[in-house]
């Protein structure tokens, strides 16, 4: 299987790392090789944060080569243009306005909602996604994140049908 390249981008504190953790856990459970790489440290202080997730039957470099991302998931509107160059021709942008955080029972679940949108494009069983989400949050946050995931997944599916 060809390696799938995903970049998740946003600002420190938005849940970029959490989202990439959930994605890599869901993929790892399905038995594939995964590499997930990001820069910690100063970037946590509200600055730009990106996380690279690559998966497939065999993955070498932990970083997505420039311009080779199949999917770019962005949590902050002002980080879309900064990262757009990472997307390959024909790659899919999952922009923050795809899901309105106001429509979620907890606006902090926006990262999980956009993962829901990403999930509509990937061949990973929904049960793996939900298991990864549940293992990443306290039990009292499960319902809100399940809802966010499902709203994002539906939004992406609706968009696919229009196209």
């Amino acid at each position, binding site marked *: 299987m060809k390696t799938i390249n995903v970049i998740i981008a946003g600002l420190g504190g938005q849940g970029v790392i959490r989202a990439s953790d959930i994605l890599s*856990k869901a993929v790892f459970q399905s038995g594939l090789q995964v590499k*997930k790489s990001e*820069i910690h440290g100063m970037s*946590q*202080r509200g600055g730009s944060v990106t996380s690279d997730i690559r998966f497939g039957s065999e993955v*070498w470099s932990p970083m997505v080569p420039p311009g080779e991302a199949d999917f770019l998931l962005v949590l902050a509107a002002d980080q879309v243009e900064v990262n757009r160059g990472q997307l390959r021709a024909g790659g899919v942008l999952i922009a923050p306005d795809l899901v309105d955080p106001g429509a979620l029972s907890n606006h902090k679940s926006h990262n999980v909602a956009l993962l829901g949108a990403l999930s509509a494009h990937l061949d990973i069983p929904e049960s793996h996604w939900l298991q990864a989400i549940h293992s990443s949050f306290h039990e009292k946050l499960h319902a809100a994140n399940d809802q966010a995931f499902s709203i994002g997944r539906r939004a992406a599916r609706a968009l696919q049908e229009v196209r």
Partner: protein
Amino acid sequence: MKTPDRQLLSGDAAIALAAKHGGVALGTGYPGTPSTEILESFSQIGGKAQWAPNEKVALEVGIGVAYAGARALVTMKHVGVNVAADPLFSVAYTGVVGALVVVSADDPGMASSQNEQDNRRYAVAAGVPMLEPADSQEAYDFTLAAIEISERWKIPVLLRVTTRVCHTQTQVRPRPAMTVPVPHFEHDLRGRNLIPPNARPAHKRLRQKLSEMLAWSETTPLNEIIPGKKTLGIITSGVCYMHAREAAPDASFLKLGFTHPLPMKKIGEFVRSVERCLVIEENDPYLADAIRAAGFAVESKPEIFRLGELNVDRVRRILVNDTSPEPLKPPGKPPQLCDGCSHRVVFEALRDLDCIVAGDIGCYALGVLPPFSAMDCCVCMGSSIGIGLGLRHVLPRDEAKRVVSVIGDSTFVHSGMTGLAEVIYNPPPTGHVVIILDNSTTAMTGHQEHPGTGRTLAHEPTGKIAYEDLAKAMGIERVQVIAIGKDPAEFTQLVRDSLASEQLVLIVARRPCVLVAKHLRAYEAKACAAAEVVAK
């Protein structure tokens, strides 16, 4: 609890897991990106882990553990090895009884560091063996190998990792746990007291060990040949192997995992077996220089690739010797001091008072950025005090009187106390003002405890250093503690008065980091509850 047979772990977590399975009796170090999570993870999985005041003390504690026949893991970022270099060079001479594994987490590209020094040079300079893992599985395997090598040759081992190994999650399949030695002390007065008559034979013993390890490096599977086309051979180590394997999937590879002493015979045979041989490495041309010095014609990367980390695209450029300008990624948003951060108040005041600010390492280094632009230098841990004094000694009086040294709480404990001794011992004619920014945590690396917080690595209550008492005991004339509020007026007035006094002044500017305040309250409540139980 049973260990799952397949786990997704960061390189840091993999080193911690290997330390657990390898029977490490004590893990110690000082926080520093990208090494910090090793000890945190080791503690979380039940290992005994503790933060030391700095890397030198950590290594010395590790040496004691290894002299006692137990296994020690000592972790630090690359610049931390500079601090620990003194004991490192000498313990290479004395050797150890148990295992001593020193992790140097290098940061090519300086994601969160003040330089991108290549610590592979330390292995050569100190005369210690070195391992370089390429992913989390190797971080796990090589940590166990480092324990074995350390015990076999009774020598400290350098485990050199980089940001992309530490902070990349990849699959790890763990192995059965090793048997654990029982600590026991044997006197060895001549072996471990490095007075010159003992140090001379100790150096000879070290060179003998290195010569044995050189022979071993020729055959160890840690140095692996991956056969491919004979038109191109690539010699590489660490994460660069991953980039190179992707950029040149058909090439022959010599992947070096044990990179000091280098297996020159094996390298020579590999070079002769291919038509074109290229060395792919980050930072300094450590491998290329050594291989060329041994008389083998290999290509090295163009000088521009010495700067910054490598990736698949840059390796592709190296392969075709492309030195054209690389495309620049649009600048992202730089980090900034958090809303509500007490450092904001401090730097507003220092800016408004037109101070000359000798700064230090920590979140507050962001005081250099607008709207503050109120930090004139930031060099290394603890440097603010000495540099501030130097400025005061020679600047004209009207400028000297505006110099302040600004240092964080964790940084002060790390290496500010000796600076304070210098303040007392060689005071400038205009006095000096030292400000400790006490936010009750090591904030920048992710909120680690330190001896000034009174809590251990695992956030349990322990002994606590009070800076104000320490400064008074050392002989500082004026010691002022101020709680930082939202209004900078009171703090500004205090600094103005302190500068005008021309005395030696230490100001402790105190307010917990906004990101950690909630946790601090929880730790304190827990400590109070525990104290009540004891009282009953």
